[in-house]
């Protein structure tokens, strides 16, 4: 009897092993997200956060000002994703298909900015963008401006630094999918007489599509909720999704509206991601037709 029990326990040992991570996941990821949804649906004061179910919060949050803020974040995220995609693709191509030696060196070079603290990078940009900083000095030297221009506390600064910070995020997925392309296909294309441009458009680009999609959506989703860069470099003139959430939770003290806003903004993010997904599919289909 005991032996059988022991055998049974042993066969279930895998459950013992996988449980802690799952419990952790459920308790600290699933539960908080559920909690936010519940918060957004309730509206009571103080610490009884989950009573009085109502849709009132959502109606409040669907106002023009909130939607405008979400659209602004979507705009920022889209520009960042598209710009970094366009500019990182040649670099990924260089890494994967152009150089044969020193790959390790270049990979290392391009991973270092990826894991540097965001705050440190923002701080570094202060030095370049402020009135006595590098930008102004260079422009002055080139004679393009007469008086120092204030680059900080502007949308320009926010867009520029977002682009700079998220660029490395884009390189990795692109590189890994470009690397997987069978080089024989490319060689075959050249052997058959195609020019570089044709090879690029018809062979390399479509084959690297998985990497493009992963990179694009990674940058898009993550840069949507960005808090640090808009808050430090935007002069707090405009609210983005991240800064507004922080305002609701820390200063405005209205957690219900904050939770409802989170639901709203991520709903809109999801919708826009679907739209981009559809656009990507269309492009894929189009390119197949051309081929």
């Amino acid at each position, binding site marked *: 009897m005991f032996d059988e029990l022991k055998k049974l326990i042993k066969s279930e040992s895998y459950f013992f092993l996988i449980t802690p991570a799952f419990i952790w996941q459920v308790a600290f990821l699933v539960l908080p997200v559920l909690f936010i949804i519940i918060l957004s649906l309730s509206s009571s004061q103080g610490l009884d956060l989950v009573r009085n179910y109502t849709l009132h919060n959502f109606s409040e949050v669907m106002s023009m000002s909130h939607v405008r803020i979400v659209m602004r974040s979507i705009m920022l995220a889209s520009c960042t994703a598209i710009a970094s995609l366009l500019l990182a693709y*040649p670099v990924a191509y260089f890494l994967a298909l152009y150089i044969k030696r020193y790959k390790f060196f270049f990979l290392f070079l391009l991973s270092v900015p990826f894991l540097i603290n965001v705050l440190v990078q923002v701080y570094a940009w202060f*030095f370049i963008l402020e009135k006595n900083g590098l930008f102004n000095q260079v422009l002055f030297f080139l004679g393009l401006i007469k008086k120092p221009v204030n680059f900080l506390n502007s949308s320009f600064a926010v867009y520029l630094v977002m682009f700079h910070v998220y660029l490395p995020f884009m390189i990795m997925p692109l590189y890994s999918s470009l690397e997987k392309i069978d080089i024989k296909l490319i060689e075959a294309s050249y052997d058959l007489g195609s020019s570089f441009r044709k090879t690029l458009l018809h062979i390399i680009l479509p084959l690297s599509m998985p990497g493009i999609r992963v990179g694009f959506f990674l940058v898009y989703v993550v840069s949507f909720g960005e808090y640090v860069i808009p808050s430090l470099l935007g002069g707090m003139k405009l609210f983005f999704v991240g800064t507004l959430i922080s305002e609701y939770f820390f200063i405005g003290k209205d957690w219900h509206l904050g939770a409802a806003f989170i639901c709203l903004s991520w709903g809109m993010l999801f919708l826009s991601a679907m739209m981009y997904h559809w656009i990507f599919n269309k492009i894929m289909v189009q390119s197949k037709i051309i081929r």
Partner: protein
Amino acid sequence: MKLKINKYLLPLYVLSFCLFLYLPIMILMMYSFNEGGFPAEWQGLSLRWYYDLFESVEIWRAFKNSLIVAVGSACLSLSMGLMLVCGAKQLKKNIVFFFFSNILIPDIVIAVGMLSLFSYFMVPLGLITLVIGHTLLGLGFTIPVLKSRLDELDYRLVEASYDLGASSLYTFRYVILPFLYPAIVVSALMVLIVSFDDFVIAFFCSGSSAQTLSLYVFTMIRLGISPTVNALSTIMLLVSSFFILAISILQARLANYE
């Protein structure tokens, strides 16, 4: 003529790209050796700000907190990740996908959710809650890395070990674990870096009783620019690069073994 330009176009582009990536950091490092405060021009080489840095009590306290949280979350996420990956091996279903959301879901949503959860259950915010948050992030890193490494293990070795009469524990200790060492080290380093660099979760989930390095830098930036932060940033940079170098070398070695 056209060919020549084309030949150098791409490398030139990549070079300027790298320059753009590294520009702010180089300037930051340069100014950390500047004698004068900000916003001053170059006033001579000096390690003055580094001395200030080492004397500042606040920074050491923040560093200590960051270290505790990083090591704690690395240990936790490593052990739980290891257990999960080994257990999942026997399950034959791919449950790793469940953990990808840790990195995909924006940290601000996780942070805010955890904040509300902790407040509701009246858990005091502090180092422990921070460790919890970072472990969650860490799980998203350790599990994929460990899983991909474990997949490369030739299971016949494990079967051979069982056939020769070894117990499960013995097999684990002497067959599976040594094979996983590189992946363990890599994922541990990744979690350490992510924990040190994390700002959003610390901002929302630690109040201000547990000041971490990122929070400290944030406060200094809001108050204006102080060159001690430059010195601190340079050091953080060098440490991160060192870690990444270690990771890269390890991964290169891994690739060589195959």
